[in-house]
């Protein structure tokens, strides 16, 4: 693989960029692999990359129904943070933050990880209590997170409206400085290039149509639109389509797939320095390096695989944004799209072995999968390679729903009084 650098760019400039190599190959599938990963999104590609890099398992295929990075990886609002409440979640996402920090250099691909800070607003007394609980828990867990007064919040984010006269005035904010954004496509491409370079076959436009299990119940391979591919280990990383794929192996999942919308404005000069989220009034916003305001909307109330959503969801999101940033009312929406997010009952992911030997699943990231990409791939690769979970993902089993040992991030933000 040709390393990327300023020098390389300059050299290529003088040969009119005719000599750049392919970032990844487009191979035909082999008859057999040690591991087949189903789904070439960020998590799947990262899993393959770490399988090859950390565990020396290079005979790996990543099978993708469409084009790599074309699912939620390419459709999210690119937020990275780790200030989750429960130590299990914080450990998982903070593991990712650690990897994010050196990811561009590790992959030799600029993923534009920008630690511009993620600010989560509190609008009620209850919000303040919840935010403080997060901050204290995070401090013990070694996760950076701090409290800001409304004035400090505005200093950090000058466009923020901290007037006492708005419907839900800002009472303060929790700021994770190390949080921020990254360029979503680059993450998929960087991992794809890295994995490909280590020998992983990324097979696009290849749909999995079945999972074959042997007499002993263990997996034997996958049926695909390009024929049967033998493998003793299969990792399913199919986001919104996980239920469908797992069903092929006869495994029921505690998942529901909802349309989640996001939108961008027309590009403008820098207007917004960080990421701001508000759970109470349901909005989050940042500005891309290109200048677009990137805004996350909510999910529809019904499951759907349509990758579109209702306009009422968009309306509610934008009214919240405009309430906090009233001068953005004259900005204009450029593009609005939807993704399909797979949601578990406790809003935490499943990164786990399954009742089927050789079958592993990584799903249930809901609206928050992008930020975990490196960490998720890293521990999932460990789980597949060793056939046992990494310390960090050990709590994220399917079985927790049976035992009741939930990691309930949603409950922790329950409405009080």
């Amino acid at each position, binding site marked *: 693989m040709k390393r990327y650098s300023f020098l390389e760019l300059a050299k290529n400039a003088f040969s009119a960029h005719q000599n750049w190599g392919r970032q990844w190959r487009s191979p035909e599938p082999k008859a057999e692999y040690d591991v087949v990963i189903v789904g070439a999104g960020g998590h799947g590609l990262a899993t393959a990359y770490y399988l090859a890099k950390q565990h020396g398992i290079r005979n790996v295929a990543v099978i993708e129904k469409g084009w790599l990075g074309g699912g939620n990886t390419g459709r999210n609002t690119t937020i990275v943070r780790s200030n989750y409440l429960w130590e299990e979640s914080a450990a998982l996402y903070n593991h990712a933050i650690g990897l994010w920090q050196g990811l561009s250099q590790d992959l030799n691909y600029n993923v534009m990880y920008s630690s511009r800070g993620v600010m989560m607003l509190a609008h009620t007394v209850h919000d303040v209590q919840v935010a403080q609980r997060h901050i204290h828990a995070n401090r013990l867990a070694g996760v950076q997170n701090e409290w800001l007064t409304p004035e400090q919040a505005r200093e950090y984010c000058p466009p923020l409206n901290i007037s006492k006269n708005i419907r839900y005035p800002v009472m303060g904010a929790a700021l994770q400085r190390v949080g921020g954004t990254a360029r979503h496509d680059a993450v998929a491409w960087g991992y794809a290039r890295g994995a490909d370079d280590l020998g992983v076959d990324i097979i696009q436009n290849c749909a999995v149509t079945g999972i074959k299990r042997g007499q002993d119940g263990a997996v034997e391979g996958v049926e695909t639109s390009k024929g049967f591919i033998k493998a003793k280990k299969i990792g399913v990383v199919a986001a919104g389509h996980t239920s469908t794929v797992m069903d092929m192996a006869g495994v029921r*999942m*505690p998942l529901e797939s909802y349309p989640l919308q996001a939108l961008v404005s027309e590009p403008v000069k820098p207007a917004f320095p960080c990421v701001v989220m508000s759970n109470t009034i349901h909005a989050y916003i940042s500005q891309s390096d290109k200048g677009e305001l990137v805004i996350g909307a909510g999910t529809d109330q019904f499951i759907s695989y*349509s990758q579109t959503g209702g306009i*009422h969801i968009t309306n509610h999101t934008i009214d919240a944004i405009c309430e906090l940033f009233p001068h953005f009312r004259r900005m204009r929406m450029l593009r609005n799209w939807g993704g399909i997010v797979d949601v578990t009952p406790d809003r935490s992911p499943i990164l786990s072995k399954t009742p089927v030997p050789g079958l592993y699943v990584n799903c249930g990231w809901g609206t928050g999968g992008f930020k975990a990409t490196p960490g998720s791939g890293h521990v999932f690769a460990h789980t597949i390679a060793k056939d046992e979970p990494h310390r960090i993902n050990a709590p994220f089993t399917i079985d927790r729903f049976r035992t009741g040992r939930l990691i309930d991030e949603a409950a922790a933000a329950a409405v009080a009084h």
Partner: protein
Amino acid sequence: MLLVYCPYCDVERAETEFSCRGQAHISRPSDPSQTSDEDWVNYLYMRANTKGVYAERWRHIHGCGRFFNAVRDTVSDKFLKFYKAGEPMPDLEALAKEAGK
């Protein structure tokens, strides 16, 4: 914003009058104390999450208040059938075929 038909009001209304309550025909085990952990988790959390024709529960929460069921293709979001609570689950495969899936 979907257009939802309420079989009790006999009217089509915008989705925001309704609340969608997930997969239909999952009933609470009649004797919970005799139900295994496995069956209880199935009741609580396991959902078909079908990509395709799916029976789900809706409530006309800002209308007559009644729960009813609907069959919807989760790929096209088109409704194939609405029916009152208590009516049996229709033959989803037949409905799918009818809809040309």
